[in-house]
């Protein structure tokens, strides 16, 4: 149940493209044709599914405050979390390179379809963003990290597939000249994001009475409150532990 919830949440509610704008560069650059969009989307799912759990593991056993305790009790006070950016990006760059080599060796057909996109992916913000969000949302287990990686990958895949399909069709409509290309793509993405916002009530079950009054401010407020509460709880628990 937990897995299912996180899975749907990462696909629809926290959609990489529409809610957090991650991976926009390649989303805009590679969405002119459906076929290439599918290739890049598949590569993103693939890489996210590998790197998020790997970075979860690194975060858990190397970077978090007190994570080095497995080396011995005297390491309990080390806090390497300031290294997380560099560790995450190094993992991603290495994994991408490794995946490229392995895929080339064992599945030339897949390599031909993913091949050119793999190097692009090392610098796709969706990948690093996946790991950073995994860290900041404190995903508790390795299994959930895998689910989160795959889920957000599928969310990104859906987004790029949808926009590529729309862009293929939009060629036949008369768009104002100055909006052609980039401009109209932005506006369509904005409209799609508004659509995706409606998934927001899916998990909470939609407390309609309250939500109807000031849905937007309410949503922002509860989100903020949640974050605040969470932080408070954490500080409390750490204080208790000490």
């Amino acid at each position: 149940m937990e897995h299912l919830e996180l899975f749907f949440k990462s696909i629809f509610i926290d959609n990489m493209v529409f809610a957090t704008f991650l991976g926009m560069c390649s989303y805009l650059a590679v969405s002119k044709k459906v076929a290439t969009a599918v290739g890049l989307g598949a590569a993103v799912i693939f890489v996210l599914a590998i790197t998020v759990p790997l970075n979860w593991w690194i975060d858990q056993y190397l970077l978090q405050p007190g994570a080095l305790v497995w080396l011995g009790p005297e390491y309990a006070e080390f806090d390497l979390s300031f290294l997380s950016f560099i560790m995450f990006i190094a993992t991603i760059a290495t994994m991408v390179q490794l995946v490229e080599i392995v895929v080339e060796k064992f599945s030339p057909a897949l390599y031909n379809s993913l091949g050119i996109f793999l190097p692009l992916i090392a610098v796709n913000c969706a990948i690093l963003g996946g790991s950073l969000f995994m860290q900041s949302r404190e995903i508790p287990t390795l299994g959930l990290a895998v689910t989160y990686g795959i889920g957000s990958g599928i969310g990104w895949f859906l987004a790029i597939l949808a926009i590529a399909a729309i862009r293929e069709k939009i060629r036949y409509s008369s768009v104002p000249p100055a909006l052609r290309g980039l401009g109209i793509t932005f506006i369509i993405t904005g409209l799609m994001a508004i659509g995706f916002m409606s998934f927001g009530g899916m998990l909470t079950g939609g407390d309609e009475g309250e939500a109807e009054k000031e849905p937007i401010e309410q949503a922002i407020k509860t989100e903020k409150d949640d974050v605040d509460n969470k932080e408070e709880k954490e500080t409390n628990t750490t204080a208790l532990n000490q």
Partner: protein
Amino acid sequence: MAEVVEQEKVAKAPKEPLFSKKNRKLVTDPLTDNNPITIQVLGICSALAITAELKASIVMAIAVLFVLGVGNVVISLMRNIIPSKIRIIVQLVVVATLVIIVDLVLKAFAYELSKTLSVFVGLIITNCIIMGRFEAFALANGPWKAFLDGIGNSFGYGVILIIVGFFRELLGSGTLLGFPVLGNPIAGEKTGLYALGYENNGFMLLAPMALIVLGIVIWIQRSRNEALIEEN
């Protein structure tokens, strides 16, 4: 790669003044006709995610200015010793180091703001503007030119961020940098525009409006300069 270096040496032979016309162009071009966001389509992610407040946009622009300015110089100094096969990893390490500095400084001096920016400071690492400029410019040019190019591009990025942030904060919460500029919106004691029945548009604070505002910026820019219009 060797060829490029050779050509470059030949091209560098006549000494240029520090602020020659060509060098000035490096700074001014990215502001308008070759803007990294609206024309080169780089670095969109952060441009959209953190522009709900003007303050966050300005801080982000400064952070990118620092990372790109310094990073471009570092990469340009190392350009002849980086093996081209592993250059992406080298570039990533340089950016990541600079971003860690920015992140720690923000956490030390502006903790609240670093919470608002959350993971997006870290995402400067994968901001395509940075990698794009490293690849396209710093690897082939000397440090001074690379520095100017970095400054120019981050100003171009900052300008768009500030424009979007300005409109989103003004229309969304009626404030600028946190100061109320349109009067007092609290019911019962309304002043300024609110007394006339004006309401804040909370929608502007939500993610999708960033895309639409940016779309409109692009629209205006391209109608002013017809040469930028795409074919389809």
